[in-house]
């Protein structure tokens, strides 16, 4: 099988901080692969090395078989940066035409492609307006379209839904899924587990620059078995931290995923119905009140909690 993206032993260090630590990764052609991880996990650094913006300290990477960062690799790669990177004083059409020409498109093919994409992102009516006058969602859609003019074999999107309204987010997710169905290989980074869960064929979980888990959603969830995540909202953060140690010896509650912060105590429990009364009882003996309880079935959040002892959105 030909890999659209192949990464072997890729590392990057900034001073004493290891941003990416010997990452190995293979993404097949036509695959939609999500990199999931909290802020600062190394997702953007990894993407930057694949896009040729950063030189790795060690390891190698290829895009469609071409060395990452080479002109040949960049010609088949579309990059959607995390922040909107467009010219606010140019119109939507002028922006698309400019980015298209940077990928070597000219004349009628460029115009046709601009027309197509303006239609797809629903900005035909605003194509002559300056981007500076657009809403956040419109800019995000245009930001994606600017990476698609040359119909790239591989599309990398770095947290494209951060800070936008639910409607625009839905539109972007649908569009990314449609692109993938049309044959584009997609590398998608996010710290929203719902997005990774919904979109991806496979998911890689990144933490402190290392891929700590890799597989399909079902495969990853199997890591935590059938355990639920119990989220207890307690009176204070300090109390939550104290109780964490006290609760892990409750039968059926695992010590491996306990996490306390912001007044919340999160635990992995094999049978939440049995565990909850005992947890309430233990809290009462400690004189702590539980304000609310949330029980979640096994998901990527619980996987991350199990593997790192931290919540995904920390």
């Amino acid at each position, binding site marked *: 099988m030909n890999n659209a993206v192949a990464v072997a032993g890729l590392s990057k260090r900034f001073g004493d901080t290891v941003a990416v630590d010997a990452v190995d990764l293979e993404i097949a052609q036509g695959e939609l692969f999500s990199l999931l991880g909290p802020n600062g996990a190394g997702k953007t650094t990894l993407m930057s090395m694949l*896009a*040729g*913006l*950063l*030189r790795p300290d060690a390891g190698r990477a290829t895009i469609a078989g071409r060395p990452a*960062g*080479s*002109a*040949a690799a*960049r*010609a088949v*790669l579309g*990059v959607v*940066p995390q*922040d*909107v*990177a*467009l*010219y*606010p*004083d*140019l119109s939507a059409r*002028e922006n698309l035409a*400019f*980015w298209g*020409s*940077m*990928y*070597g498109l*000219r004349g009628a093919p460029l115009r046709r492609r601009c027309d197509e994409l303006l239609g797809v992102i629903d900005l035909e009516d605003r194509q002559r307006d300056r981007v500076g006058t657009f809403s956040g969602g419109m800019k995000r859609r245009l930001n994606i379209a*600017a990476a698609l003019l040359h119909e790239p074999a591989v599309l990398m999107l770095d947290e494209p839904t951060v800070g936008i309204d639910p409607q625009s987010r839905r539109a972007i997710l649908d569009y990314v899924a449609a692109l993938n169905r049309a044959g584009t290989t997609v590398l998608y980074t996010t710290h929203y587990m719902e997005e990774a869960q919904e979109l991806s064929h496979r998911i890689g979980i990144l933490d402190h620059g290392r891929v700590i888990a890799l597989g399909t959603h079902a495969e990853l969830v199997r890591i935590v078995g059938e355990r639920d995540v119990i989220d207890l909202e307690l009176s204070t953060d300090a109390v939550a931290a104290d109780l964490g140690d006290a609760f892990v010896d409750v039968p059926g509650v695992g010590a491996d995923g306990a996490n306390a912060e912001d007044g919340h105590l999160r635990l992995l429990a094999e049978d939440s119905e049995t565990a909850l009364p005992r947890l309430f009882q233990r809290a009462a003996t400690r004189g702590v009140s539980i304000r609310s309880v949330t029980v979640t079935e096994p998901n990527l959040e619980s996987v991350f909690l199990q593997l790192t002892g931290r919540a995904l959105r920390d």
Partner: protein
Amino acid sequence: MKLVTLAWKDIRRQFRSGLLLVMMVGAPLLITGLIDLAFNSPAGTVEIATVTLAVADLDTPPAGAPVAAGRTLVAALSTPALAPLLSVVPVDGADAARAMVARGGAGAALVIPPDFTAAMLGEVPSATATLTTDPARPLGAGVAQDVVQRALDTLSQSALAARLTLQRVGGPAAGSLATQAALRVALSAPRMAGAGGVVVDAPEGSSPSFVARMAAQVMGGMMIFFVFFTGAYGASSLLREQEEGTLPRLYTTPTGAATVLAGKFLGTAVTLAVQIAVLVSASALIFGIRWGHPLPALLASAALIVAASGFGVLLLAFVRTSRQTGPMFGVVLTVTGMVGGLMTSTFTNLPAGLALASRFTPQGWAMAVWRLCLDGRGVGAMAVPLAVTAAIGAACLAVGVPLMRRRFAQGVPS
């Protein structure tokens, strides 16, 4: 082709910025217009106060000299035709004349040396008449200088012509007496019907072109001042693009770093060329400024573009964020512009130290080029300042471009 696309993108962005357009074109024209308005009456005629000229005539003609050239000069300057411009006040001695200027009692002082007539007769190699002007009254100083210069030129030319004619006609045998006779004729011959003695034409100060010349100096200074701002702004667009994320994004496309940076230069250079062309054309139409011959003006423009863009690139090395560019560029370009004489382009009596200091700024050399261009001088006359201006720009680029590459394109394939 990508180079042109990159440059065109920058040009469009710059010309869509209202503030930048005001800085590029509006401000220099407005400042020149205000100064022009201050010296130009609504009827279009010049209203210049009469300049008092203190004259110390120390001329002592040799024995038997047919004329006293000093007296002839004073008489020429005192003719009714010049009365609206010049009021001649005879004083005793050079010190008295200069003291009168220092007190503000006169706008200028002329000291005619003792051997003035002897020099006219060719009996001594030369004599120097000294004109002292009040730097606080540059317009009056300019008028006095203009009138006195013309009078001296007329006297010298007449005397020289007489001596040469006699030498050709009479050869070496023609003696001093013959020269004196011829000189008497030359200096007393009417040049205009009804006028006797040496006639000095009224200087251009009595016509709108005098003000136009002054406006041209102001406009030249302002043009250079604001062109340097545009050059710095153009260079800083790289910093803005880096902050906006469009520069990193450009490097994710199959476009080399060298092309991206070259596109930036091209965009800035074209913007500067358009700015100069618009300012030159608009000022010619509005203020009647004549910018000299086409080729020198073209070369002066090219040198100015190199200097302004080069200086901008160098300045960019000293700022970290785009927020710093405003204060940093404002201070540096204003100070170097002032030292370079852009704000005092109409003053002729600047202290020698300031004139020397202007030679250490690119603006000072650019002003020297454009001053010559405005005077209608040819390429040969402006070769040195032209070459120095361009060389300063090239040196700034030589230092600034590697710094820029290291900062904005490090690790990016070229």
